[in-house]
């Protein structure tokens, strides 16, 4: 356990600078998006009031409340608000591969040191896995605290009559990418991120297969992905999308959850086997 914590810390510190940069960028761009958005609505409201000689009350009656929800940002300046989110996702996806390959890279092949540490190599695997997860959940948490902050900024710019105050939960319920990244219900959070973690484990397995079998590995990876595709198609074979399927919804859902556990468990076991027995520098 001690080795795991130290390895986790080692892996975290190696990417800390870029990660903190991502966080700062996300905060900066999103706050900018909100400020610009709010000012835009304020200007257009003032303009409409000026042209039609309306009072605030009349304008409000005509146009109704502005829903300060993520949809508004998506429509108005989506790139500024959602840009950093997609950028972070891409960077973390790329780093999920680079976190392994960097050890084989360059003249200081760090992998020699990591693989000859006097501890079970599973610690190395979980250190890298948990590092990626911590980075992901860190950004999710950042988004959660940013939303009320952004609302305060919008409220400081817009007069009360113009907007309708909605809660963080509502904000994240609107169908934008945030509905998946910060799901409104904990059961969905567990489901989506359970799938995400399974995906990450599958990705790590493919990487470790390549690092163990090199060129021969490509064939193995294709076979591995074929097996996964086969397993993933089971719910559809059971008639997941047909109303008159032989299996009851409960059985199909049970099968799906079982599959996720099998895929994640199987890939995890195989990855640790590769790391223990087959990995090559």
């Amino acid at each position, binding site marked *: 356990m001690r080795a795991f914590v130290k390895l986790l810390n080692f892996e975290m510190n190696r990417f800390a600078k870029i990660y903190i940069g991502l966080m700062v960028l996300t905060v900066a761009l999103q706050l900018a998006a909100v400020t610009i958005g709010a000012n835009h609505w304020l200007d257009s409201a003032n303009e409409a009031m000026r042209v039609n000689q309306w009072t605030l009350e009349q304008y409000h009656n005509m146009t109704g409340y502005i829903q300060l929800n993520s949809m508004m940002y998506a429509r108005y300046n989506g790139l500024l608000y959602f840009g950093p989110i997609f950028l972070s996702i891409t960077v973390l996806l790329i780093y999920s591969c680079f976190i392994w390959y960097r050890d084989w890279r360059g003249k200081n092949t*760090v*992998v020699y040191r990591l693989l000859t540490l006097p501890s079970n190599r599973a610690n190395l695997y979980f250190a890298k896995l948990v590092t990626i997860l911590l980075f992901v959940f860190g950004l999710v948490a950042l988004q959660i605290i940013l939303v009320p902050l952004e609302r305060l900024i919008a409220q400081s710019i817009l007069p009360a009559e113009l907007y309708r105050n909605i809660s963080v939960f509502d904000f994240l319920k609107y169908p934008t990418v945030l509905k998946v990244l910060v799901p409104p219900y904990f059961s969905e959070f567990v489901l989506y991120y359970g799938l995400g973690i399974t995906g990450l484990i599958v990705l790590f397995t493919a990487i470790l297969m390549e690092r163990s079998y090199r060129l021969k590995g490509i064939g193995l990876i294709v076979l591995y992905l074929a097996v996964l595709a086969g397993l993933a198609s089971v719910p559809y074979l059971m008639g997941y999308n047909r109303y008159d399927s032989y299996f009851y919804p409960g059985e199909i859902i049970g099968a799906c959850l079982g599959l996720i556990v099998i895929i994640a468990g199987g890939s995890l076991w195989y990855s640790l086997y590769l790391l223990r027995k087959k990995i090559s520098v």
Partner: protein
Amino acid sequence: MIQVNQMVKIYGFKKVLNGVSFTAAKGEITCLIGINGAGKSTVLKSIMGLTPYKGEVLIDNALLTPVMYEEITFIPDSLTMPSNMRIADCLSFMADFYRNWNAERAEELLKFFELSSKDRVSSLSKGMAAKLNLLLGLALDCDYILMDEPFSGIDMFSREQITNVFTSELIEDRGVIITTHEINDIEHLIDKVVLLQHGKVEREFYCEEVREQEGKSITDVMREVYKK
């Protein structure tokens, strides 16, 4: 004692090691010699589990597993620390992971090798990197040390310092396996030689015995073996 039994290693379709067996006793310096590509460093990497192999490696009659890596350390032919780390960070990294890390000796060696703990790994010369690499292995209180080409391609002065280390108490009662492909100025540092050719151990002998019984130097034996 390190025992390697029938080690077989296949890279792609080439059988690099074809049943290599030899022993390296504690307290002796054993030198794996072979022309380039004979699989010398493959043997060391296989012993440390850095590449899969068939066969058996015993340390004091117990099968070697990663948990025993405190008793045996590996000094590869290049420094294996992240390049943005400072030397001080490397030392604290080793202290983190090795219970048998000897911090005082690390400091002594830093002075001996004239390395400054504030330097970054990326800024070190080849000689300084080799010395740091050596330090990271030697500052561990472990019974066995594997060194891959410790002398190759480094400046005269660093080579001198490393040779001093070889005859110092740092090495004395430890089992050391080094690999090299040119032996000339370290002949009398070595206790035992294992000659590799075509993936097999051609000859395994104690240098003094060969000098005494056959009046041959290690270089002579190498010429005989590699002439065939």
